[in-house]
């Protein structure tokens, strides 16, 4: 009973602890290191599920690090939307890790595996912290951890393209972190507070006195989170980074890392900036149009790609646009749709990257053109790919439809039907580049002419789990939608 109060801190302690322990375990007890990581991730997930039930029962609550209340210390805040994000992060990362254990064996050298576990645990830990923290400077520290470890899980692969992509990512993401720090400094200068709630209370007065500072700070935040979350004109690092990384890292980066920053920006909009400020600066409008452009251009760029993973990476630029669209529309239903899309896309994009990983593991093929007839030799993988693509397009029965449906409903509710057109058009574009792959894979009569390695079961089971989750999210979406609607309503 006592211990359960400390679950928010214990999640962080467990994830940071295992990341510090992994190099030692891998050096002296190699067999124990992978199970230890899986156990820690599961432990964190169990704690997060308990937290969800606690939040549902008693409403939101806070946790003071070191026992110091907000103006003096750091506060973790647990409300419904943050716990939802925490659950998505922990569940999806555990799922990817199960797949990664087998896939990494052929993508990485054995001596760096221990360090990969460390970096992976740190990505997950910092994302869990970003989801929960209620303190601006703490958010900055966690973003720093997340940025460096996200770069490192790209560059661990023995490949020159990985180094180049990772370096590009490092520079741009450091620029984003720098912008964020500058913005935090500006906010601290005019309010004297770091805690979200206290900044929120102090801002209306500060805006009167220092309007330009606040404009600059909000612009810096948009640039910072836009760079990190690959919002349209700031997405240039994403395709190389996500395409050249080892497949589990791609799944992690595309599935979760870009979304946690979209989530952080969302929290800024609804818990940090007071409503009058949001209405006086057209931040939502800027986000809306950047997101719409991202949705269209991401899909158009994806159509012309020849590399499978690069195509998936460009598709991520379009898909993160839906999440930003939900935030920008500023309407309960649309935000619900955006956050549902966050979950669905985390699952489907991770699964598609896993499928790409299986294809590369088994045949070594990366080119889309060479995939003809692959459905006969890798039926399970291509079945999972089909379900994932169907969800991308938004075919009924999969999760992708539900999120697009709610986004469109939200757009109609606030009287902006143009965004419904954009959502529909981008669904068609998605169909244009996903369908030919599936059709070629299954319908082509010619024999598949490449060598095929048998795929271990440990890589296929996560694909089944992903398929089941997508179909489940498509058919039984009601409880999630209700949960999200409650969570979002609390923010207004």
């Amino acid at each position, binding site marked *: 009973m006592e211990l359960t109060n400390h679950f928010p801190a214990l999640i962080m302690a467990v994830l940071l602890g295992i990341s510090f322990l992994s190099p030692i375990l891998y050096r002296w007890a190699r067999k124990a290191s992978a199970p230890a990581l899986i156990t820690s991730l599961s432990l964190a997930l169990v704690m997060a599920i308990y937290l969800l039930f606690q939040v549902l029962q008693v409403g939101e609550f806070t946790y003071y*690090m*070191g026992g110091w209340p907000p*103006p003096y210390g750091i506060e973790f805040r647990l409300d419904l939307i943050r716990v939802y994000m925490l659950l998505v992060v922990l569940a999806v990362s555990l799922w990817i890790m199960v797949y990664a254990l087998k896939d990494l064996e052929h993508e990485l050298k054995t001596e*760096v595996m221990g360090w990969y576990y*460390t970096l992976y645990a*740190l990505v997950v830990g910092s994302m869990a912290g970003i989801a929960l923290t209620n303190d601006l400077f*703490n958010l900055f520290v966690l973003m720093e951890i997340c940025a460096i470890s996200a770069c*490192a899980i790209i560059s661990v692969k023995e490949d020159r393209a990985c180094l180049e992509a990772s370096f590009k990512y490092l520079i741009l993401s450091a620029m984003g972190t720098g912008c964020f720090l500058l913005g935090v400094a500006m906010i601290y*200068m005019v309010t*004297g507070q770091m805690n979200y709630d206290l900044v929120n209370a102090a801002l209306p007065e500060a805006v009167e006195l220092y309007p330009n500072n606040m404009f600059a700070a909000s612009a810096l935040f948009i640039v910072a989170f836009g760079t990190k979350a690959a919002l349209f004109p700031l997405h240039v690092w994403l395709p190389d980074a996500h395409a050249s990384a080892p497949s589990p890292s791609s799944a992690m980066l595309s599935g979760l890392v870009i979304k946690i920053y979209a989530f952080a920006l969302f929290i800024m909009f609804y818990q940090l900036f007071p409503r009058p400020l949001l209405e006086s600066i057209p931040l939502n409008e800027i986000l809306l149009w950047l997101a719409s452009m991202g949705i269209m251009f991401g899909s158009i760029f994806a159509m012309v790609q020849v590399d499978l993973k690069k195509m998936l990476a460009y598709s991520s630029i379009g898909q993160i646009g839906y999440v930003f669209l939900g935030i920008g529309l500023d309407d309960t239903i649309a935000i619900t749709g955006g956050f549902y899309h966050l979950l669905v896309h985390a699952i489907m994009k991770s699964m598609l990257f896993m499928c790409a990983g299986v294809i590369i593991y088994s045949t070594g093929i990366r080119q889309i053109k060479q995939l003809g007839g692959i459905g006969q030799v890798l039926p399970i993988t291509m079945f999972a790919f089909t379900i994932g693509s169907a969800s991308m397009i938004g075919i009924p029965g999969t999760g992708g439809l539900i999120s697009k449906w709610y986004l469109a409903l939200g757009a109609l509710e606030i009287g902006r039907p143009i965004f419904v057109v954009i959502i529909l058009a981008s669904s068609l574009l998605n169909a244009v580049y996903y369908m030919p792959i599936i059709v070629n894979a299954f319908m082509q009569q010619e024999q598949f002419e490449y060598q095929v390695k048998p795929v271990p079961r440990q890589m296929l089971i996560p694909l089944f789990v992903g398929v089941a989750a997508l179909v489940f999210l498509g058919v039984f979406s009601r409880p999630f939608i209700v949960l999200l609607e409650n969570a979002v309503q609390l923010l207004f």
Partner: protein
Amino acid sequence: MEDILFIIIAAIFAMRYLLRLQARGVFTILLVGLIGFFFSFTVAEMPPFGDPNNPVFNEIPARYMGEGIADTGAVNIVSSVIIDYRAFDTLGEATVLFVAIAAVIATLKSH
């Protein structure tokens, strides 16, 4: 006003000629100049440095300096802030060092 405009345009052409910049470089310089121009308004508006009436001198520094020793037992107030009041940030910073090491080793060992 026209003089300033003239100087700016002349400077751009001079830079383009002297540094052999492409059109893209000129565009970048213009953009950076524009951002700097807008940020200068922000700087002009900032509260004066070190003024005791600034918003940052609120109850937080008062508590740190007034009751820091009683709260934490440390004479060095900086230590009491970074390792007690905001210890979680320091744990994060230590982790940043750790992740930097992990990233360097992982990258160097794999290549």
